[in-house]
């Protein structure tokens, strides 16, 4: 049976020396992970348990995952900074009976049978690894409100999209406890030379400095992360060969800006979701994806039902956790992504989320399509579109804009941006209100915060 520990040892044996995962606080020497760990004698007590993994530093999480996979029945990847209330809700949703907590922080006040501290630096394993389970990896979906909704993956579904790759030096803005970041962590453990990870309290410039020092070749983040890089003075500290965007819609403006900033890099965007897994990577530098991907005979099958993309592949999660949870897949085995797409000739474009529409007098407006129009203006670096209540039409489209460097935040700029939107969009989709802001709020997952 393959578990992360054995897979890792196999690639470690073939890989070179000096492979590492680095956060600001810790560097994990991957050579040492074969016979060292971060859970000490506590690992034996976690045998066959359902474990909440709630540690701060991502290097600790990485080391703990190698130890836990195959030993525990289920690992619950708790989001960074989860408070006791969220941990209790996650424990309930996942029926967790054990907790791995950060040995450098107070143990959270939650009611579980077993608690084990996770500490770095690595210490020799108390006993050889004895893996016997196909461990379920449970993680919350990216929905924000209400009680957490967990999906279950296994190492097989999480790594199904991988192709062998060595010598790559990765860096990511993601947190490795969410699906996108976990993909990169697992890729790194199973082949890459190094992985540079961010720290929650680290500024963009400082992180870019560390990425540059690590000479990262492959760098991934959301379009929101990358817009921050574009606005940062530290953008030239990195020299990527490959720039990857995922997690949000990558519009032509951000793709073009990144190509201009990193002319030697290959800029690509990937489509994946926690539930559906990695579906495809688009490498032609344009927003959306070729309509030729809408086929059902390959490893990843795609279809559009009622304008919403559905995905079927061996990379999808197994199911939602919890009694009475809805089915993850439809009767044909497809996962409904909730992402609305529109076809334009031989191209499919992402329009927005099914639930996120603004209703302007009965006409539907996806915030994302308006943001794409705003972002196409050279004065605009980033934007956020939301509904503003209105007694005549129910709602109007309002926008907040972060201006490009050196652009005057005056009425002339505002008029120019709005005129461009009205030229590009039907009248009801063009923003009726526009404010300039210094920055836009981002979720912990690196996505733009949307109004409810």
């Amino acid at each position: 049976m393959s578990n992360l520990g054995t897979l890792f040892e196999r690639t470690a044996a073939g890989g070179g020396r000096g492979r590492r995962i680095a956060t600001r606080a810790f560097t994990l020497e991957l050579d040492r992970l074969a016979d060292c760990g971060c859970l000490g004698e506590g690992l034996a007590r976690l045998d066959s348990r359902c474990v909440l993994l709630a540690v701060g530093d991502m290097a600790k999480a990485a080391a703990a995952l190698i130890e836990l996979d195959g030993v525990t029945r289920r690992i619950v990847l708790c989001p960074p900074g989860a408070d006791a209330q969220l941990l209790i809700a996650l424990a309930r949703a996942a029926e967790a009976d054990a907790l791995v907590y950060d040995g450098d922080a107070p143990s959270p006040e939650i009611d579980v049978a077993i608690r084990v501290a996770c500490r770095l630096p690595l210490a020799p394993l108390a006993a050889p690894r004895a893996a016997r389970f196909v461990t379920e990896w449970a993680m919350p979906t990216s929905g924000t409100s209400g009680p957490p909704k967990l999906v279950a993956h296994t190492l097989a579904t999480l790594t199904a999209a991988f192709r062998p790759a060595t010598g790559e030096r990765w860096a990511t803005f993601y947190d490795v406890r969410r699906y996108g970041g976990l993909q990169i962590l697992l890729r790194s453990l199973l082949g890459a030379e190094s992985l540079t990870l961010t720290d929650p309290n680290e500024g963009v410039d400082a992180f870019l400095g560390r990425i540059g020092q690590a000479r990262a070749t492959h760098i991934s983040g959301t379009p929101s992360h990358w817009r921050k890089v574009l606005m940062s003075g530290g953008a030239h500290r990195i020299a990527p060969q490959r720039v990857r965007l995922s997690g949000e819609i990558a519009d032509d403006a951000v793709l073009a800006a990144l190509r201009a900033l990193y002319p030697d890099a290959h800029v690509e965007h990937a489509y994946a979701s926690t539930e559906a897994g990695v579906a495809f990577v688009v490498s032609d530098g344009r927003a959306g994806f070729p309509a030729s991907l809408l086929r059902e005979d390959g490893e990843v099958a795609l279809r559009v039902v009622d304008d919403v993309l559905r995905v079927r592949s061996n990379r999808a999660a197994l199911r939602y956790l919890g009694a009475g949870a809805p089915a993850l897949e439809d009767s044909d085995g497809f996962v409904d992504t909730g992402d609305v797409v529109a076809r334009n000739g031989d191209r499919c474009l992402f329009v927005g989320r099914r639930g996120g529409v603004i209703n302007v007098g009965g006409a539907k407006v996806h915030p994302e399509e308006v943001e794409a129009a705003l972002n196409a203006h050279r004065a605009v670096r980033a934007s956020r579109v939301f509904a503003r209540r209105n007694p005549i039409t129910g709602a109007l489209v309002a926008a907040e804009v972060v201006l490009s460097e050196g652009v005057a935040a005056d009425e002339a700029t505002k008029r120019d941006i709005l005129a461009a939107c009205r030229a590009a969009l039907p009248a009801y989709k063009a923003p009726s209100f526009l404010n300039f802001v210094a920055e836009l709020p981002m979720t912990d997952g690196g996505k733009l915060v949307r109004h409810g």
Partner: protein
Amino acid sequence: MKHIPQREMTRFMSTRLTILAAIREVATEQAKTLAPLADDLPLMETGLDSLCFAILVARLEEALGADPFTSAGDGRLPSTIGELIAFYENALV
């Protein structure tokens, strides 16, 4: 004839001018051709569509600090330019 103090007169005039200016501004932005704005002109014949009115009402809320369409007490809504102006003037009293 009811005597209106000069101060209120000025405010009424300014409300009228603010509304007429906002109507012209929205029409220009939305590329609509406006009919001459007389007090007895029905709103439906101004050349503005419902999106324009929605934007107008939101702009006037910012400019005048009132949205009588949301707070209207008796549910009677204006149907001409003159009524629209009175609607706001009453809301501001």
